[in-house]
């Protein structure tokens, strides 16, 4: 008798695990996509996945839905381990009614989100859904709302990771947008509020899904996505790598690794050209100082004039923010300020110390920037740096001009340590611009204005474009030999391990977003 019951259970499980059935699975495969179950099993430690709510059924009695049985109501939820640590996961199953979101589907997702918060473990959500289940009407909308609310509750407490492996359209896009990191895959991910069809009917504009909201669009143009992959397996590798750098919840530190020296091919003192107008790749400076030269970049393709990402110093995770002279001369603009600000807040929320490498000529001039709100967006960065209470260290590599100097984690925003390389230029503006203003009269009245201009630029550079003026005021703690950068960083992190800085008690601040 007992055996019979167990057999019955086995049969039920097998049936439910079939998802949308053979035909639907074949269709999913033909689109180059894995099934929801395959995705989960690829992501978590082998044999660790445990599923819940497999027998949940929808309760819709209209539009012929009463006769339709939907396996797991189109979503798989469960827990598992990743590198032996607990993790919560859900995956929408496109083979079951297009992964459409009905009220029970949503209730499964919110259930696993609640678990994740209660157990303080990261949650990974795999999105592959045609959108709201129209037959369920407002109940479907209620489901989305319940998810968004929990995304906000969980924010900054447990890591929330969204993986877009199919369509994610309409209201559904706002759950990923509320989470910490969004992963997309070329030709598979599609995110938009209104699709090409609607845009064509209403506006007469013709555009393909990929051009409107494909992986590349969100990685390069909108900044909605943080990681771009060419295949699902590459995407899963990226997720697993990210997980090694971040703590499991906000009361913990990221897992420490065995300390390693940077690779000898990265010579920290040979990367930055002395001529302030010449570009270089600042990522090589980061690689020259982090453990094993292992730098994990976030949002590589969007607003590439600022670099953000994770590395390790002496085995512990550190968040890096660096101006990138290689792209747009490393200027600050609307997008780069926005990108850096959010990353700084992420690191602050999850106890990750911040290291800033500074080399920027200022803010990008232009009517388009001013009218796009560079004041408001730039302010986000000031806010994020000022508010962060994790250890904050700045190294001025070369240029630190004007508002950019203040914004890039200056002493005045309560940086814990500010170091500068000997050829750093710290001033209100670059020598050329400054000389043209201060010595305008001398230059225009000179017999040879061009010669006089050169002379005055040199004079200004000599007098102000160096780190010692700032060092004489204590705005810079030490002027250091570039070769000692790692040594100074390791020590700064070591002595700030028990840092205790607090913001005034309040409900929350009002950052400019």
């Amino acid at each position, binding site marked *: 008798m007992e055996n019979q019951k167990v057999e019955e259970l086995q049969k039920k499980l097998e049936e439910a695990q079939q998802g949308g059935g053979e035909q639907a699975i074949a269709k999913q495969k033909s689109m180059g996509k894995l099934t929801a179950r395959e995705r989960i099993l690829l992501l978590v430690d082998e044999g660790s996945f445990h599923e819940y709510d497999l027998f949940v059924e929808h309760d819709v009695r209209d539009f012929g839905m009463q006769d339709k049985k939907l396996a797991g109501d189109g979503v798989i939820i469960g827990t598992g381990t990743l590198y032996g640590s607990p993790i919560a996961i859900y995956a929408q199953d496109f083979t079951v009614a297009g992964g459409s979101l009905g009220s029970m589907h949503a209730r499964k997702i919110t259930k696993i989100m609640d678990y994740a918060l209660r157990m303080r473990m990261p949650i990974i959500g795999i999105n592959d859904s045609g959108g709201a289940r129209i037959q369920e009407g407002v109940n479907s909308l209620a489901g989305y709302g319940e998810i968004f609310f929990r995304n906000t509750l969980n924010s900054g407490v447990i890591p929330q990771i969204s993986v877009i492996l199919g369509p994610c359209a309409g209201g559904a896009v706002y759950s990923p947008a509320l989470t910490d990191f969004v992963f997309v895959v070329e030709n598979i991910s599609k995110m938009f509020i209104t699709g090409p069809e609607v845009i064509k009917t209403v*506006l007469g504009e013709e555009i393909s899904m990929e051009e409107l909201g494909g992986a590349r669009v969100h990685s390069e143009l909108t900044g909605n996505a943080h990681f771009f992959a060419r295949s699902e397996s590459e995407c899963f590798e990226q997720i697993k790598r990210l997980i090694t750098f971040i703590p499991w919840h906000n009361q913990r530190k990221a897992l420490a690794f065995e300390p390693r020296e940077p690779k000898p091919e990265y010579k920290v003192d040979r990367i930055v050209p002395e001529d302030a107008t010449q570009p270089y790749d600042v990522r090589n400076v980061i690689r020259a100082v982090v453990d094993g030269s292992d730098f994990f970049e976030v949002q590589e393709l969007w607003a*590439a004039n600022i670099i953000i990402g994770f590395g390790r110093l002496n085995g512990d995770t550190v968040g890096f923010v660096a101006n990138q002279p290689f792209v747009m001369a490393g200027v600050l603009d609307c*997008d780069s300020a926005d990108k850096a600000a959010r990353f700084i807040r992420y690191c602050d929320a999850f106890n990750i110390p911040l290291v800033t490498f500074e080399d920027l*000529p200022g803010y990008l*001039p*232009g009517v388009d920037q001013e009218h796009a709100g560079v004041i408001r967006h730039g302010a986000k960065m000031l806010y994020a740096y000022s508010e962060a209470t994790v250890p904050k260290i700045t190294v001025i590599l070369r240029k630190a001009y004007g508002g950019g100097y203040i914004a890039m984690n200056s002493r005045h925003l309560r940086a814990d340590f500010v170091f500068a390389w000997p050829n750093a230029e710290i001033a209100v503006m670059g020598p*050329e611009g400054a000389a043209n203003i201060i010595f305008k009269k001398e230059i225009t009245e000179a017999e040879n204005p061009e010669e006089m201009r050169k002379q005055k630029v040199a004079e200004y550079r000599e007098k102000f474009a160096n780190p010692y003026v700032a060092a004489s005021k204590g705005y810079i703690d030490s002027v250091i030999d570039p070769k000692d950068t790692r040594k100074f960083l390791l020590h700064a992190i070591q002595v700030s391990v028990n840092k205790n800085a607090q913001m005034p008690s309040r409900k929350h601040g009002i950052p400019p977003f």
Partner: protein
Amino acid sequence: MIPGSVCILDTAYSTNVTQRYLNRKKWVKPNPNIVLSFIPGTILQLLVKEGQPVKAGDTLAVFVAMKMHNAVLAPHDGKVAKIFVGEGDRFPKGANLFEVVA
């Protein structure tokens, strides 16, 4: 990304330039006499003719956008110098609709 240079306060920095930067539109001083569309739509009805005098706030046309009927109002007193659209025409955002000369 295309190699190029970016000029900031008299200094040209050699660097790569983003596509977005290259695509940026040059700002032009708006002509206060030109009535632009603020949303894409379709002209339903023209209520004025070229040469007709109008008062500020007069309805010049009715158009459909996002399933709603919207009115185009005269920005100031004057004369309708030119009508750029006809009934049934579809127009994008920022298109010239009318010229009203004070």
